[in-house]
Structure formats: C-alpha cells, structure tokens
C-alpha cells in the first residue's frame, strides 16, 4: 500500500543576489493516513520550504512528491484541482493568513469558490455553521471580521478553512507558536480531536520540542536542508542517535529540570545555507566530528544520518564538550 504522502530526494535552491541558497538538500519523507509527523528544526533548516513544496507553492529542482502514488506536479486542470483540495495548510501567523476584508463565513467558504461542486451553494451557509462549531466557535461569529477575533479564535478560523475542502493531509506550519500558552493548549486539543473524528493526517512543523512530542507519532529532525534523524517520537526523544538531536533536546528548557543532568550547550550558531559545510552539515558544531565527516555525506541508517551515531545516552553526556564555565 503506498503511503499517503511521500517525498524523495527533494532539492530546492533559491538564487538571491548572486548567491545560491540550498534550502532543501535531498529530503526524504513519508506520511501515512491519519498519522502525525512532527518536523523539527531551527530557523533556516528548510522546514518551511519543505512545507511550501509539499503544497506546490514551490516547485522542487529535483526529487519527487507522490500523493497516493500520484505525482501532483504532473497534474493539470481538474485533476490538479482535486489534488489541491486534499492537501491543505494551517499557517503560523493567524493575523496574516486571513484576508482582513472578508468575514469569517467568506474566509471559511473560500475553498468552495474554487471547488464549486464540493458543497452545493444552498448548503454552504449551514456547512459554515457546522465548521464553526466543529472548531469551537459560534455560528453567530460567521459575520464577523478577522480583527474582531483573538489570536486563538483566528487560528480556529484558519483550521476551519483548511477543513472546508475535506482534506486528507493538513500541513500545520508552526500553528501554535504565535499563541499564548493557555490558548495554545486549546488549539492543540482541537487538532487532536479533529484527527480522531476525521482521520486527517498532519505534517506538524514546530520549533517547540515539547509541542511536537505531545502531538506527533513520528518525528523528523532537520538541519540545514537535510533530515538528519527520523523515527517514532518517543524513541527519538528518549534515545536520540544523532548528536544534533541530542543537543537540541538537551538545550530546550524544561519545566522539571532533571537534577544532575549535564546540558550539552553547542558552540556557535547554524552556518549560513549559502555556504554550508561539506560532508555532514553538522560537523562544524559537533563534538564527535572526524575527518570523514568533512568528506562524506553520512547516509541515513537506522533513522540517523551520522557517521558516529550515539548508542546510549550516558555516552552522550560523557563525551559532550559542552558545560563550559
């Protein structure tokens, strides 16, 4: 059975003032029906470009995307339109992603203006009310404008709009990072409820590890345009095999600090994607780096793209450089 969504060897290069910026550098990814894949990485790692490519907002330079076995980039006309319907997106910024001049009902019904036969026009008003209630708003909110809603409510409208075309996959690009903590929890609960009810699959992009840990079945960690580690969420979080994942997990502040645990503090910052390191992209910040890391791009093996994957956590702590005075 083919995966619902599958990407292989995606490469995307942007040209900016004479520089070539490799945003995606051979990304493989798959997503099953009703599953949540968490995509983690720091700024500039290419996770947003990946999302935009999967939604066909960008065309990859190399590599393939398969949706239920079909390449959406090869589709035209009505077939393309029906594919568009099945993959939707929830954006990070609930203020920028809603046109301020349209009411909630117009915003939610927007997909139906393109997919005309999805909901018959006499049913549309009722369907808007249903969707509003589904995402926890009131039917009376239909005539209000985005700026009359709070951030969390706007994000609910964004989710309702994504649901309007009855998609199989929703790409959530940092859907809660602009929201307050108490509201963030409401939206995360809503997304979980919708998945249970509708069986929709999520590609959940976030820089917040605790959020990803909470929502994702599987997780993929990106660094400078590549997926460097992937696997079931609990496994990756409990026993990271790539040094970067280990450092990322250790650097994230946690509510309950573990007494005596040594924190790996990486030196430096993510190198510029305009001039990335050769071989393993992480080698310039890695405390395990050897000569081979500069020469050979590590293949993805057992869920980690590393020449010297970590075997157990004690070794990480013992070998980590970090806790400098």
């Amino acid at each position, binding site marked *: 059975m083919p995966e619902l969504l599958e990407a292989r060897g995606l490469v995307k290069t942007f040209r900016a003032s004479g520089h070539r910026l490799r945003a995606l550098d051979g990304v493989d990814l798959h997503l099953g029906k009703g599953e949540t894949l968490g995509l983690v990485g720091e700024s500039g790692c290419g996770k947003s470009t990946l999302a935009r490519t999967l939604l066909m907002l960008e065309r990859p330079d190399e590599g393939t995307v398969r949706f239920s076995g079909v390449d959406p980039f090869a589709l035209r006309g009505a077939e393309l339109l029906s594919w568009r319907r099945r993959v939707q997106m929830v954006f990070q910024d609930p203020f920028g992603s809603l046109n301020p001049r349209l009411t909630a009902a117009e915003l939610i019904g927007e997909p139906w203006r393109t997919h005309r036969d999805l909901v018959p026009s006499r049913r549309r008003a009722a369907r808007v009310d249903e969707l509003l209630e589904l995402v926890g708003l009131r039917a009376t909110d239909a005539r209000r404008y985005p700026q009359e809603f709070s951030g969390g409510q706007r994000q609910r409208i964004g989710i309702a709009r994504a649901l309007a075309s009855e998609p199989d996959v929703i790409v959530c690009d940092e859907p809660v990072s602009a929201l307050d*903590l*108490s509201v963030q*929890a409401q939206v995360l609960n809503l997304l979980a409820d919708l998945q249970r009810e509708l069986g929709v699959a999520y590609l959940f992009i976030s820089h917040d*590890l605790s959020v990803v840990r*909470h*929502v994702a079945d599987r997780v993929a960690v990106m660094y400078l345009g590549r997926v460097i580690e992937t696997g079931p969420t609990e496994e990756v979080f409990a026993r990271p095999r790539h040094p970067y994942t280990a450092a990322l997990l250790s650097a994230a502040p*946690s509510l309950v600090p573990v007494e005596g645990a040594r924190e790996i*503090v*990486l030196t430096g910052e993510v190198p510029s994607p305009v001039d990335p390191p050769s071989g393993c992209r992480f080698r310039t910040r890695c405390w395990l780096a050897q000569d081979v890391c500069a020469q050979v791009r590590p293949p993805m093996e057992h869920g980690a793209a590393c020449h010297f994957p970590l075997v157990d956590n004690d070794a990480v702590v013992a070998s980590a450089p970090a806790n400098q005075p």
Partner: protein
Amino acid sequence: MTTSLEVEGLSVDIHTPTGVLHVVRDVSFSVGSGRTLALLGESGCGKSMTAQAVAGLLDPVAEVVGGAVRLDGTDVLELDHTARRALAGPGLGVVFQDALTTLNPVQQVGAQVAEPFRIHERMGRKAARERAVELMERVGIPEPRARARAYPHQFSGGMRQRLLIAMAVALRPSVLLADEPTTALDVTVQAQIMRLLADLRAERSMALVLITHDLAVVAEQADEVAVMYAGSIVETGPVREVFDRPRHPYTRGLLSSVPAGAAKGEPLRSIEGSPPDLAAVPSGCAFRTRCPLAAEICESETPALLEVDGRAAACHFAKELTDA
C-alpha cells in the same frame, strides 16, 4: 542579600481614544542582588509595560499613575529627568527582545557598545573603544577587535543579543532587566544566551528581572517568580514551590497547559477562553470568567495578594488550593 530593586504599588494607565486602560494595577515586587526574578505572563498581561515603567521607557500615551520604583533605595519616579538618567543610566541595564531594531543599523557596533562609557564615564573615544572590545570578548563575541568595526546586520541573531547584553551590563548595573531576551532565538542559541545572563548575574552580583512567557525558562533560570494576569500579580513566591504547588488557579492552568506533562493523545488541560481585553476586565477577580473555581464572592470582591509563609496568591480560594 541586599534589595537592589523594589517596586511598590506600581500602576500604569494608557490613554486611548475610547478611554483609559489600566494596564498595570498595583504591582509590587523586589529583587535582591545576585537573584533572578521572573515576571511571567501571557501577551497583554502588562509584564512588558511594568518593565518599561521601571526602566523609564514608557510610550508617551502611557502614564505612571502611582507607586514607587526604588533602585538601591532611591525612588526613581520621584526624580526629575536628568537626575533619573544620571542614576538609572548606570544602575539599571535593559536587554530587549528584538536586537536588530534596538541596534543602530548605520553605526559600527564597537561605537555602540562604547557609548555608555562615553556618556556616563566621560571617557575618550580610544579608551571607551578599548573597554568595548573587552566587553565584547566577555559576552563571547569571537575576534572582538575586528568585529567591533562591523555593522549590526553582519551579526547573527544570537551575536546581536550578546551585543545588547554587553551594552546593558557595561556600567556594571545593580539591576538587569531582560524583556523576552531569547524569544526570537533558536533553541540552541537560546541556551547559550541564558547561560551568559546567568554567569554575568553571578559574576557581577546583579539582580536579574527576567520578563518572559515561557514557563520552562522560568523553571530553569529564576529564583522567584511573579505571575501576572490582566495587569496584576496573581501569585508570587520561590519558583520551585510555586510550580510544584500553585496556589492560584491561573498558575495551575498555565502549568497544566504545557504539553510536556501530558502523554501523546491525552488532551491538555487548558484554560477556557482567552485573556481578557484590557478595556473590559471583569469586575472582582479578573480571572473569574475563566476560572473553574469561581464563586459569587469572586465577582463582588477583588482578592488581595496575601502573603503566607513567603508566598502569596491573589485568590479567594488560595487556602483551599494550598491544602489540596
């Protein structure tokens, strides 16, 4: 331990076309040297406005309508503009969230870091530059002498934040105010910056006021916490105690909203609704409309922030929550 910063009954109003908003209401807290106090709250709770009032950086539409801000014993709100600048300039350092807009884009960073020395210690250009380079080295900027000639846009986000910290601690202030210093940064860089702040605090025995919305940062960095909601402090006390046994339902709700605690698939116990619009804060207890414990008394009476064994919570049911 000496008290470096003491804020007492601070209230700030904002004048808008539709009326006056009470954005900070009767806020009191104090920080000792070498300690970290976290002002924790969600957007619009008044934590940044409090910080701006303390630092004397309020927007002209906002006005301090009451209270005292004592920096090493002197109430800076009583002073005139010049006296305040002479005292608070060196005595109080401020680090902002957005380092790119805080730095002047067309001036070499060396000159910007040297500015505090030139203004407050009346140093010559050369000597001030020398001190700036030393300071840049201390905050972890590689090759400080060469980098001092660079401009802000040539630095990464983390490095710009380091520059801001260098400027803030230049005159060895007794209080450092950090307003969401790591919110715009990546996780691995965030850890570096928090470490730098903690080291500087210990090394110079500064009092650090950390303004943030991130509970985990508070848990890891702060000694004391003051939780703000709708302009008031609703709970305060030592971080570990407050986070382990919160006495205000809002603090409790915040803590259970953090996804780290709950297992995958299990719903988060979030707080109903969203923070109130400051133009329409509920009467009595501001939190009552979202509170699971709300009773009639919460509507009629504003709960006072009552101190019990070193902690305080502004809730009519604080005692019940303590015993529970």
